[in-house]
C-alpha cells in the first residue's frame, strides 16, 4: 500500500528519487471522473481488500488449531484472540496515550527533517556553490544506513523524546532533500525557451515555472518522508524509551503477550495508513494538476 521501498528504511542508498507510486492510484485515474465513480471504485477496492484480509485471517485461525510443533500458537497467537485484544487496546486510555506520544514524535521529526531537507535542497538546487560544497557530503550520508545511527542519537540525546525525534528527522531529511534537488533541477527545455523568449527574469522563471514544475516531485519526497518518520520513531522507541507504540510492542513481545502485540501492530498499521491518507489528501489539493495517472518526469 505504501509506496516506500523497504530498502530505504534500512538506509540503503535511494539515489533515484522517490517517484510517485503507481499502485492504488486507480481511484483517480482521470480528472474528469465524477465523485460517484471515484467512490464506487474506492468501495470496490475496500471490499476486495477486506476479502483478502478475511481469507488470510481464516487460514491463520485454522492453522492455529494444528500441531503446536508445526504451528506454535504461543508465539503466533490467532485472530480470535487478537480481535478482542485489538478492541480492548483501542478502548484503553493508556494505549492511546502511548500512540499519542508516537504521533507527536513522528510529526515533530517529520517537520524538522523535511524542513531541513527542503531548505538545503533549495539552496543546493539554486546556488551552484552550495551544490559543489554539500552534494558529496550528502551522498556520503545517504549511503549510511540511518537506522544504525540510533545508538549514536541515544548517546547524544539520551532516552526519551529527543533521540527518537532526531532519528526520525534524520531519516526524513534525505528523501525530501533528494526530491527537492531533482524536482528543481529538471526543467523542461521548451518551457525554458518560452520563458526566455518572454524575457522572464531568473526570479520569474523560478516563481512561474521551476517551483510549480518541482512541486509534484517534492511532494513525492514529503510523502515518503512522512512514512520514514514513523519508522524512525518506532525504531527509537524499541530501543530507548518507556513510552510510545514501539515501547508497547517491545514490552508485549518481551512478556509474550502476542495477541496484544498483534493488536498494537494493527493499530500502528492503521496509524500509518492515516498519515499516508492525510498526505495524499493534501497532495491532491496542492498538486491538483497531477491528478492523472501520468508519471511526472
Amino acid at each position, binding site marked *: 500500500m505504501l509506496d516506500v521501498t523497504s530498502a530505504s528504511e534500512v538506509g540503503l542508498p535511494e539515489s533515484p528519487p522517490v517517484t510517485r507510486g503507481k499502485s492504488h492510484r486507480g481511484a483517480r485515474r482521470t480528472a474528469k471522473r465524477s465523485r460517484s465513480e471515484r467512490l464506487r471504485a474506492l468501495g470496490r477496492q475496500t471490499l476486495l481488500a477486506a476479502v483478502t484480509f478475511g481469507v488470510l485471517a481464516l487460514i491463520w485461525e485454522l492453522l492455529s488449531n494444528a500441531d503446536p510443533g508445526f504451528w506454535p500458537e504461543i508465539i503466533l497467537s490467532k485472530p480470535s484472540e487478537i480481535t478482542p485484544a485489538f478492541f480492548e487496546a483501542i478502548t484503553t486510555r493508556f494505549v492511546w496515550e502511548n500512540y499519542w506520544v508516537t504521533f507527536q514524535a513522528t510529526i515533530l521529526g517529520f517537520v524538522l527533517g523535511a524542513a531541513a531537507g527542503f531548505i538545503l535542497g533549495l539552496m543546493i538546487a539554486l546556488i551552484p556553490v552550495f551544490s559543489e560544497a554539500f552534494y558529496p557530503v550528502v551522498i556520503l550520508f545517504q549511503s549510511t544506513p540511518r537506522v544504525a545511527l540510533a545508538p549514536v542519537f541515544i548517546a547524544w540525546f539520551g532516552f526519551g523524546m529527543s533521540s527518537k525525534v532526531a532519528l526520525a528527522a534524520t531519516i526524513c531529511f534525505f528523501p525530501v532533500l533528494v526530491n527537492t534537488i531533482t524536482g528543481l533541477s529538471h526543467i523542461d527545455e*521548451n518551457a525554458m*525557451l*518560452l520563458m526566455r*523568449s*518572454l*524575457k522572464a527574469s531568473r526570479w520569474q522563471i523560478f516563481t512561474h515555472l521551476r517551483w510549480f514544475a518541482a512541486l509534484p516531485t517534492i511532494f513525492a519526497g514529503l510523502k515518503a518522508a512522512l512514512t520514514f518518520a514513523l519508522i524512525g520513531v518506532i525504531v527509537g522507541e524499541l530501543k530507548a524509551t518507556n513510552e510510545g507504540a514501539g515501547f508497547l510492542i517491545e514490552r508485549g513481545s518481551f512478556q509474550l503477550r502476542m495477541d496484544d502485540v498483534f493488536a498494537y501492530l494493527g493499530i500502528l498499521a492503521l496509524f500509518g495508513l492515516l498519515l499516508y491518507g492525510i498526505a495524499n489528501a493534501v497532495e491532491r489539493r496542492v498538486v491538483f*494538476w*497531477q491528478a492523472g495517472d501520468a508519471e511526472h518526469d
Partner: protein
Amino acid sequence: MMTNGETSAVDLGTPPSGDPRRPAGAGLAYESIRKVFGKGADEFVALDDIDFSTTPGDFVSLVGPSGCGKSTLLKLTAGLLNPTAGSVLVGGKEINGPRTDIGLMLQTSTLFPWRNVVENISLPLDIRRDRSKNREARIHEVLELVGLTGFEYHYPRELSGGMQQRVALCRLLISDPDLMLLDEPFGALDEFTREHLNTELARICEHEHKTTLFVTHNVPESVFLSDVVVVMGAHPGRVLEIIEVDLPRPRLPKLRDSPEFSEICVRIRSILGLS
C-alpha cells in the same frame, strides 16, 4: 489592440476596411548569417551565408529537410541564439536578445498544467507585469478569435492536442507582437487537425496582418499559409531558393485542390530534390 471591439467571429475572415494587405508588423532581414555549433573537429555549420529580407506583414515559411537549420534560423530571429557572423534585423533593429515585440510558439504547446486556459494566456502579461484593466477583455477576444470561448477555466490536461495549440497561439497573440515565430506549431498533431488549424491560422494571420515566420517540413502547409516560402537545404544549412506564393487571399481549404497550388508545391518539391 488586435481587434476593434465590435469584431465578431463571423467577419474575422475579412480584413479591415479597404486595405487588404495593410503593411503591419516588422520586416525581417538576414545579413550574411553564419551559425556554427561546436569547435574544432566537432564543428558543425548549421547555417551558412543566409542573406535575404522580407516585406513587413508577410507570412514567411522556412521549408527544408531536418538539419537545414530552419529551427536555428528561427531561434536566431527570436534572440535565443546569437549568430556566429552576420546580423538579424527585425523591424530595422538588430537582434541581440529576446524582445517583447517578438512572439514564439513551439511544436509542444508548453502550457503550464497548473494554470487554466485564461491563466496560461496571461503568462506573458504576468511576466511583463501588465495589470491593465482590459486584460480579461483582451483574453476573451483572442479566445474568440481561435474559437475557444467557453474553455476559459479548463486546465490543459482537459483539452485535446489541437485545443492546447490554440491556447498556445492565444498566449502568443495576447502580447500583440510585431513578429510571430512559429516552429512547427502543428507538427505533433494528426493530419486532420493540422489542416483545420492551418486554415484557422491563415484566417487569423490575414486578420492580424502580422509578420510571421513559420518553420515546417511540410511543403503543402507552407504553400497554403505563405506569401513567401524560403526553401532551405542541409549540410550546411542554406537558402536554396525563395518562392513567392501569389495565391489569392483569404486562403480557404478548397485552395489545396487547385492546380495553381499543386504547381507551386511541385516546384518546391523539385527544388528540394523530392520529385
